[in-house]
């Protein structure tokens, strides 16, 4: 395969708080290729958003710091880039669509202004041109009478329309990588589908890569090419989407999948697995999932397993299932 657009390895982002060090991201590895969608799933609080912010280097200083790992964007380590150059990448080559359309637009600026400022900044054009481009971007995401609505304020748009504005904003500079952090969580079902369809179009038309963070395994099945499953700041399983659904290895992933009643049913949110996810400030030694694991062994609570390659494009972080795989079956036998 060609060089990935983005390759994250060993990423560690910690928060140094008064209560202690919160290891929000503590070992995240994945790749994203052009024209592909990577899904990141995992329970709330497992570090998905912090991962995306780490990629953009927007983790709130001074408590939050990325303390380890590499983020190679087209072969260049973003973590080593001077801030000025990083600003040239943000919004321009990597764009963010954040979680909540209600709060991610500035209430006191018109939507046009918010789109145009990025265009002016990155494409070095005058306001007239920027305005035209902004209208085009709004039209592209399906906002009717964009030319007049461009001067309206965010509160004058509905939730779905606002998310379209956010997407238009993210797309305005034609980024190579789009990071969408739960882009549809706050929207109702019909609008969700429209937004997802819109994103799918974008991927196909523009050859953009997308990192899609979601709770929704149905969305994953429909949209993604690869999936990274996160638990307590770590990627515990990484694979192409078919393998994840057909042959999940990590007990946590299995738990997640078991909670989908029927394949193909759209409303299949992650149903919580029994027990609570651990506090990221007080992680026990060993596997963080061990206390909730149905296949727990002594070793699990003693040492943290590594993310091991068990197949092409399939990696798992688990003593039990990775080990099982090792001995009886020959490599590649699962497929």
């Amino acid at each position, binding site marked *: 395969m060609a060089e990935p657009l983005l390759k994250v390895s060993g990423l560690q982002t910690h928060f140094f708080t008064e209560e202690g060090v919160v290891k929000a991201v503590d070992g995240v590895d994945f790749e994203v290729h052009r024209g592909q969608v990577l899904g990141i799933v995992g329970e709330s609080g497992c570090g998905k958003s912090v991962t995306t*912010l780490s990629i*953009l280097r*927007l983790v709130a200083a*001074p408590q939050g710091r990325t303390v380890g790992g590499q983020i190679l964007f087209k072969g260049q380590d973003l973590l080593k880039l001077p801030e000025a150059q990083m*600003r*040239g*990448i*943000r*919004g*321009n080559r990597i*764009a*963010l669509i*954040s*979680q*909540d359309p209600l*709060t*991610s*637009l*500035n*209430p*006191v*600026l018109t939507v046009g202004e918010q789109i145009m*400022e*990025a265009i002016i*900044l*990155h494409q070095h054009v005058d306001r007239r041109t920027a305005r035209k481009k902004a209208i085009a971007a709004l039209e592209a995401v399906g906002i009717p009478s964009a030319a007049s609505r461009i001067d309206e*304020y965010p*509160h004058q748009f509905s939730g779905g329309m606002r998310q379209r504005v*956010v997407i238009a*904003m993210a797309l305005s500079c034609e980024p190579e990588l789009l990071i969408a952090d739960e882009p549809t969580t706050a929207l109702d079902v019909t609008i969700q589908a429209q937004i997802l369809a819109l994103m799918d179009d974008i991927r196909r038309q523009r050859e953009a890569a997308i990192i899609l963070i979601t709770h929704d395994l149905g969305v994953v099945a429909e949209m993604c090419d690869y999936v990274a499953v996160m638990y307590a700041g770590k990627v515990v399983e990484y694979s192409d989407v078919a393998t994840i659904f057909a042959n999940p290895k990590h007990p946590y992933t299995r738990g997640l999948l078991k909670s989908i009643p029927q394949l193909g049913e759209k409303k299949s949110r992650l149903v919580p697995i029994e027990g609570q996810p651990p506090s990221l400030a007080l992680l026990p030694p060993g596997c963080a999932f061990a206390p909730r694991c149905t296949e727990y062994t002594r070793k699990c609570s003693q040492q943290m397993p590594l993310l091991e390659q068990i197949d092409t494009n399939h990696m798992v972080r688990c003593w039990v299932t990775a080990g099982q795989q090792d001995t009886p079956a020959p490599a590649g036998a699962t497929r």
Partner: protein
Amino acid sequence: MGAYVVRRILTSIPLLLGVTLILFLLMHLMPGGPLAAYAQNPHIRPEDLAKIRHIMGLDKPLWMQYFFWLGAMLTGNFGASLTSGQPVLAMFLSRLPNTLMLMGASLVVSLIIGVLLGVASAIKQYSAFDFTVTTLAFIGYSLPVFWFGVVLMLIFAADLRWFPAGGIHSIASHGGILDLAWHMVLPVTMLSIVSVAGWSRYMRSSMLEVIRQDYVRMARAKGLSEQVVIMKHAFRNALIPLVTLIALSLPGLLGGAIMTEQIFGWPGVGRLFFHALAESDYPLMMAILTISAVAVVVSNLLADIVYAALDPRIRYD
């Protein structure tokens, strides 16, 4: 918008009436009543007092007096001072420009400094700078204003001789603007120190609140420089809640600052009010209180209108 303003004004009327009623009753409940200024003077005989009472209509039933008083005030007739015999409105107006100047300057100065400090310490949260500003703000807040005024005077007027120890103009130079500004420095500093502390605290927390918002992160994610993020995206939003506070401090522009005016011999409304209190000059006191009450209500209204202008989310319904 017009209808909104009219409705707000109409709803303020009962409020104002309530305030005037309370003020009126207060005046009558004070020891000595409205004629305390005369009652303390041993040379005024009871029969004279009775005469004055009659002249001023104080022998009428209380409710009637209230309506007379209210009616007179509505026509701008606040009566004559018991101590000077002058129309109290004229006395008030003669002091008003001085107080507006002093309080206005201090509001502007303290706002600018306070807001800048607040923003700076919010974006450098937990830095040495933030810590210093926070500490100074707490000191400024808890400084006894009176003591601070005297210390200012001792250092800058007595020791260093940089500024005059009081008054509004040098006797020698008549009315120069520089001379005025020179006289304003110490009282404005004294007034500003506490409000700078207040504004900076308020601005800091408002700014911190805003900086955490998604749209600020989104602004950063667009690649905007830190300066643009702070000034264009965060600052304006952080200012919105401040507007209410600013508007609420506007009545102070009229009322003046008793202590500062007293210490620095500033001929403002605050000192006039103090004089009215000390001499039990009730018409004067009532005029100042009533005008202040109206100013409070008007400022509230103003706050809402400006707030609406700043925040497009507010609608008038």
